[in-house]
């Protein structure tokens, strides 16, 4: 990443393997496909937060707002008789993007804590709104009666979650590639500059707020599509799509995986959700307790998450191997 030469253009082997393994998921974890879809969706959602937090440096505890808007947009569309999946995604992207664009003007003002509170406030506002607008959202009972039509007119959403998995994987993969392109562009570099030192970016002539607004809108589109995927693959939307907990857990996933590395969100979502799947059976309190302890540990002992730790291990191992080769 240090020198922008051809390196950024090549796709390393590890990345190809990563996606091939996910594609092989149909055979590798056939009985866990629904969970795997959820992981992908959470990973896509975390990718959106990575742009906001990892690249642009805005600490947000209200990102579920855009996820929720997307989920409701797709959900309402499908429950009103239009069950074609891709148009649902499109509507979700537009609605969440519009919400993100409008609220971004509030978010980009101020500094860390102000932004934290404004994003939290926006999240809570939308959550309350969904609770009140029972006609639209079904309130506490959730949005029922979503009828999804077959994907591309042929693949019916099945009870084993095969189609849902393939759908989530395809959408996540395409959006990931687009995001990969964006963060490696001059625009992506400018976001990292803003994260590091917004004041100096102004002094270089950057309209910092405008860049952040563009970034935030794009991230909201991603969050909205993730929300829509969840709605469509589970054929249900509850107010929890907008909950503070979802925002906080999203942040945890991203941090666990590692920020500013693109793959951190997907890795973190996998680690988080698989651990949750197995550990919360024991006792929900244990899960939350150790999650909290783990967060503190991450802050204390290395902030680049699981992915960062793996990369460091790999580097150390490679150096060792080179040394060994030299000595022999």
């Amino acid at each position, binding site marked *: 990443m240090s020198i*922008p030469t051809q390196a950024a253009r090549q796709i390393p082997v590890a990345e190809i393997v990563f996606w091939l393994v996910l594609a092989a998921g149909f055979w590798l974890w056939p009985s866990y496909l629904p969970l795997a879809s959820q992981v992908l969706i959470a990973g896509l959602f975390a990718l959106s937060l990575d742009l906001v937090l990892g690249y642009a440096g805005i600490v947000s505890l209200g990102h579920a707002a855009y996820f929720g808007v997307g989920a409701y947009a797709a959900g309402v569309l499908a429950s009103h008789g239009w069950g074609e999946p891709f148009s649902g995604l499109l509507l979700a992207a537009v609605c969440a993007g519009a919400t993100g664009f409008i609220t971004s003007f509030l978010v980009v003002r101020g500094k860390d804590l102000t932004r934290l509170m404004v994003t939290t406030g926006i999240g809570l506002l939308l959550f309350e709104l969904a609770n009140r607008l029972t006609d639209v959202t079904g309130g506490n009972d959730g949005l029922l009666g979503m009828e999804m039509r077959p994907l591309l007119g042929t693949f019916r959403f099945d009870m084993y979650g095969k189609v849902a998995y393939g759908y989530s994987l395809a959408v996540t993969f395409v959006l990931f590639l687009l995001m990969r392109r964006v963060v490696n562009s*001059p625009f*992506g570099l400018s976001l990292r*500059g803003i994260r590091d030192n917004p004041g100096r970016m102004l002094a270089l002539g*950057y*309209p910092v707020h405008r860049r952040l607004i563009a970034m935030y809108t794009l991230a909201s589109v991603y969050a909205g599509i993730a929300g829509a995927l969840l709605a469509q693959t589970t054929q249900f939307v509850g107010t929890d799509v907008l909950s503070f907990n979802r925002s906080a857990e999203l942040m945890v996933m991203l941090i666990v995986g590692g920020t500013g590395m693109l793959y951190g969100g997907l890795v973190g979502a996998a680690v988080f959700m698989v651990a949750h799947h197995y550990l919360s059976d024991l006792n929900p309190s244990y899960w939350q307790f150790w999650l909290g302890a783990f967060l503190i540990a991450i802050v204390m002992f290395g902030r680049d998450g699981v992915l960062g730790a793996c990369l460091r291990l790999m580097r150390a191992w490679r150096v060792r191997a080179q040394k060994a080769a030299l000595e022999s």
Partner: protein
Amino acid sequence: MSIALRTDGLVKQFGGLRAVNSVSLSLPQGQRHAVIGPNGAGKTSLINLLTGVLRPSAGEVYLGEERVTRLSVHQRVKRGLTRTYQINNLFPELTVLQSVLLAVCEQHGVATQLWRPLAACAAEIAAAREILRTLNLHHIEGEAVKELAYGQQRLVEIALALACKPRILLLDEPAAGVPKGESAALFAAIARLPGEVTVLLIEHDMDIVFRFAERITVLVAGAILTEGTPQEIARDAQVKQVYLGNAA
């Protein structure tokens, strides 16, 4: 010759302290101008007012004919006004090359491109490398700025300013913190600036000031004490007393 930068009765009040007290300056295009004055005289505050980091309590700033007092920092940069900082103000996590690329990309108008890989911005990378070479930084272009020695970071500070293609360059003690021997490259780079670039230099080293400047403004307690050619300033009894007091 036309006026590149002008201020009119600029005032900055910090609570009870008047850090800048009705300063009126006028820099013709291409002038090499120095502002000197004891610590706390208000030199940095003046630069902050010129660039828009601070809002003046009173007075106006003009770039050429245009009044820019109400414009924001980045809008003034767009009009060719660039500065460096007395204390390093850089991008610690980015590499040297990436930092300079930020400035170059914005200059070339490619910084909004979402789609072009940075690696494919050959013109920008070449321009950035060119600037790094003039400052002898090209061999460390891949290092993160935070890993560099302070003196090298000072050079990156200059590199960023040069990359902005300034028409008016404000240098706030550019050599502060640079080991004596290493400041040569820095001043050589400044000396190589095209003649039409207007430079305002704040500097404590009198040798450098007298060698560099065509005109010198002496700022004391926020106000202009006197202004003149280096010879006039060197002869000025008032300046000797107030500013060079102990030395003379």
